[in-house]
């Protein structure tokens, strides 16, 4: 029989030393390629900036343009950050954009038409989002319904509610204090809204990277059985991720109101596809193969810089749809390629 009873077989007799060298070499080579891969998007973004600064120095390379790009797309950063939390636990949330819209409408409606103080209206918007997230998570975890289906239904319901509540009209005249806090007040010439997105990026980065919670979210999303067998409360985490996504989406909605001073029946809905494009593109950068905060941040600004540049060259509005759609498909293709390559090496 093949089992020798040799207690304490010396290391080196295990027939793996020859393999060791080549594995080590390929691991090192992989590490270098990995570094390059991690910063490819960042480099591409800087490349776009440099090229267009030369091509259109009089419009593109102006501080006002930079500040406007950073501020007006902070909302997309926030919504995409909301999205990557459930994506990390392996669930889709198609309702983030509509929850943002709903919270915008809630703030505007309560503040303008019912005369609630601003802070109370904002609190109410978060409460509504909490409810939506709790229902989403409950249906997904307790009833085991596909997250895609649950949130597709939920976003449609919310769109209906928004139309109903606003009576299909835009509500204007929100407390200017909100506008001040979001867009009018500036730091280093950039409106506050950008810093909110920046702070949130730091927070999500911290949670994903520097807490056991972040590690558990990742593991629960990668392999629910492994997570369960390690004593992780998978259901609770998935539920919590849906709730967190809704709350952050509500923050985005409040920022939308602050940006425009108004909210209407279709506010926020256009953010869904760009958010998915940015989330998947972001998962190929900084920490390739994982949805991550800084990857998201870079991806959003890469996409919007590209679009702005094209528009400065004379492209019309339609170009952003082409751009985002293409980016989503390319980003998913790219992230699947990364995954497959890693799996292939695994065998």
């Amino acid at each position: 029989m093949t089992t020798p009873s040799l207690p304490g077989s010396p290391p080196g007799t295990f027939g793996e030393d020859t393999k060791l060298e080549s594995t080590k070499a390929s691991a090192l080579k992989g590490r270098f390629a990995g570094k390059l891969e991690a910063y490819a998007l960042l480099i591409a973004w800087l490349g776009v900036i440099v090229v267009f600064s030369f091509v259109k120095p009089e419009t593109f390379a102006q501080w006002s343009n930079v500040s406007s790009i950073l501020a007006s797309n902070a909302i997309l950063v926030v919504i995409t950050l909301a999205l990557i939390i459930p994506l990390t636990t392996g669930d889709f949330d198609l309702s983030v954009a509509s929850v943002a819209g709903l919270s915008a409408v809630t703030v505007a409606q309560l503040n303008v038409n019912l005369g609630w103080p601003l802070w109370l209206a904002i609190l109410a918007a978060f409460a509504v989002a909490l409810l939506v997230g709790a229902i989403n998570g409950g249906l997904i975890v307790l009833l085991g319904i596909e997250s895609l289906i649950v949130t597709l239904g939920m976003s449609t319901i919310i769109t209906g509610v928004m139309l109903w509540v606003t009576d299909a009209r835009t509500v204007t005249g929100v407390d200017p204090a909100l506008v001040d806090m979001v867009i009018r007040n500036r730091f280093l010439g950039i409106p506050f809204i950008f810093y909110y997105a920046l702070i949130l990026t730091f927070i999500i980065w911290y949670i994903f990277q520097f807490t056991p919670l972040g590690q558990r979210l990742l593991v629960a999303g990668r392999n629910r059985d492994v997570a369960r067998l390690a004593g992780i409360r998978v259901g609770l985490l998935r539920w919590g991720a849906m709730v967190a996504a809704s709350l952050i989406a509500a923050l985005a909605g409040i920022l939308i109101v602050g940006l425009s001073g108004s909210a209407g029946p279709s506010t926020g809905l256009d953010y869904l596809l760009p958010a998915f494009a940015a989330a998947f593109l972001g998962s190929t950068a900084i920490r390739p193969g994982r949805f991550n905060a800084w990857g998201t941040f870079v991806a959003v600004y890469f996409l919007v810089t590209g679009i702005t540049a094209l528009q400065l060259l004379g492209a019309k509005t339609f170009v952003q749809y082409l751009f985002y759609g293409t980016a989503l498909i390319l980003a998913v293709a790219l992230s699947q390629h990364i995954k497959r390559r890693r799996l292939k090496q695994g065998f």
Partner: protein
Amino acid sequence: MNNTPLLKITNLTKVFGGQKALDRVNLTVNVGEVHGLLGENGSGKSTLIKILSGFYEPDEGQLEVNGKSVALPLLPGQYRSLGFEFVHQDLGLLPSLTVTENLFMGRIAESRTPYFSWLNARRQATKIFADYDVNIDPSAYVDEVRPVQRAALAIIRAIEGIKYLRASAGAEVEPSLLVLDEPTVYLPSQEVDVLFGLVRNIVEQGSSVLFVSHNLDEVRQITNSISVLRDGRSVGTLNTETSTKRELVRLIVGRDLDQDEFEPIPVSRSEDTVLSVNGLTTSLVQDVSFDLRKGEILGLAGLAGSGFEDPVYSLFGSDRTASGEFMLSDLPVKFSGHNERSAIGMGMALVPADRKIFGSIFDLPMADNVNLTVLDNFFFKGILRHNKLRKNARDLLKEFDVRPQLVGMDYGLFSGGNQQKAMMAKWLQLPQAILLLHEPTQGVDIGAREQIYQVIRGRTSTMSTIIASSDFEELATLCDRVGIFVKGRLAGFLTGDDVNHSKIAEMCMGESADAR
């Protein structure tokens, strides 16, 4: 009967990572016979079958079908045109569709006509079942019919598939080969006869059957001849009628029954019971009760489908069908309502058999995998200490001799043995008192296996261990006591000198056991 064998395999060799899964294997199946293929887990049976189905590429070997030489490796799907058909243990049926839909699935997939008559199909199904003399309702849903009817459906579908393909290709009808890979594992013994009737019927119609099984009695009942594999080698082909069961066991196990050499079994250290299971019932086992003593290494053995691994998963709270209760340090715990978190809290650890599905995350680094159980210990002042976590992982890899010692390398890139050592490390860094293992050395090379054994033995002063394994040699080497599972029941225990490979094998294969 003609004398050209239907299937002739010569010198078939397949190497996995330096280990020969098949080593110059020969196998001949004659026309019109039921040929048994026997061997323990890891003896190479499934590798051989996967080469026949074109899934693996062999390193060497020749294949002849009906006297004609066929080039290896087979292309995917080529087995059909050779007249092979496979029925695996899982049967490959879609339970939410009807019997008729399942029966004609292949035909629909390949159909080029725009119209398919279900009325006609149902009528044909009724006729086919009548031809084979089995009673299945063609309009019933597959998940509503009895297990034996499901198995029969899968077998009939395979045979009809070959016939249809040949008829539509206009080829002259040559004998075909049906490979049955453990088709009886989930069937109650009294119903196996129905299946055997079907197999005989198929052979009378001019096909041959290659019957792969663990179960000696069944193989002896249905086959004409039997080939045995051991450690990837052909060790003999016997005529079923003239061979004895004892002879077969000897061929399978590979040694004379009374001359076992293995190292002396450590005497059980204590009579103190740390854990007792009372009346555990799951989807596979009924009313299982046993005690685990302090410092003991208790083995659980059985054939596939006997449920020998269920106590391990139930104790860890991950079998939701489990009922009954267990006592842990005088505390009664119900299996229902028990879960993984409570099990870990009670000081248990589980290293499951399937590293890929349940044990680890292949596309995360080694450090992330081994540190999963201790994350909270490395979170202080609001920061998860990645440097300390990496150091912890490095120390563990060193202690458990996992190579290469690169904690940033993806888990899936390590070899099987190193993956398994890392899984052990992941749990043994905790102060757990009960270690639950299922197939601890499956797909693990010899050196790593020996190291894992040492780890298990080395912890008996602080840990009690339960090992569910289908590797009987392993149980004989490690265990103080081995509980034998036969068809969902704990049939008895082997202790002392009886804890040896052949005794375990005999009892598992249903030889009358003197249960105590």
